[in-house]
């Protein structure tokens, strides 16, 4: 299952990428699952995405919780708590 993953602000800088298309292994079916899968990609990924880090998530541009389901073709974004206004 392929999804498009996006990173913003400090998270994008820490990971050194604005995002990529990822082919997910069977069993990764939620945003939290995807976060765990990505955190295994290397040291900077582990430290940026670890459980303790305050990260907001969106699926198809709607803010969601970790338990939200993902499906093929979804746009999944990870970013720090927002600071606009």
């Amino acid at each position: 299952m392929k999804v498009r993953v996006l990173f913003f602000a400090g998270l994008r800088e820490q990971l050194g990428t604005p995002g990529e298309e990822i082919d997910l292994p069977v069993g990764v079916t939620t945003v939290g699952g995807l976060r765990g899968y990505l955190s295994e990609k290397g040291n900077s990924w582990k430290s940026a995405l670890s459980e303790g880090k305050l990260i907001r998530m969106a699926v198809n541009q709607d803010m969601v919780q970790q338990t939200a389901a993902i499906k093929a073709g979804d746009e999944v974004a990870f970013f720090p708590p927002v600071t606009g206004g």
Partner: protein
Amino acid sequence: MKISVQSQDFDLSEETRFLSKDKKVGAIASFVGVVREVPMTLEHYPGMTESSIRKIVEEAESRWKVMDCTVIHRHGALQPGEQIVLVAVASAHRGDAFAACEFIMDYLKTQAPFWKKEHRPEGARWVEARSSDDQAAERWQGPTRKKAG
């Protein structure tokens, strides 16, 4: 409803003039956020930014008698003293306009995907979210505040 995420500046009086075209409008409450002290760059999530602001305005419209609303948020490089954000709400009476304007601003702070990076002499750093902003948004989650006049 007008929602714009743009790099260029905006003109408050031009926006309020537009909102007062409807002769049933009796009140326009507006808020302008300004860059304080430190130069900054604003990043956002194109697409989600606009849709999240739209949802916030729709929520305000469901709570108060809002006749029209304009939200403009700038992105890119901004210097101290420059305008960042405008929320202007038109209503028949001031109570609805004041409350909706404050609500939209409080929610925008915690829901709209913008991030500020400050450029200080000692280096650039991402601004951290403040829990006081979360608390400001949360206070709207109880019963709707009593309307003034």
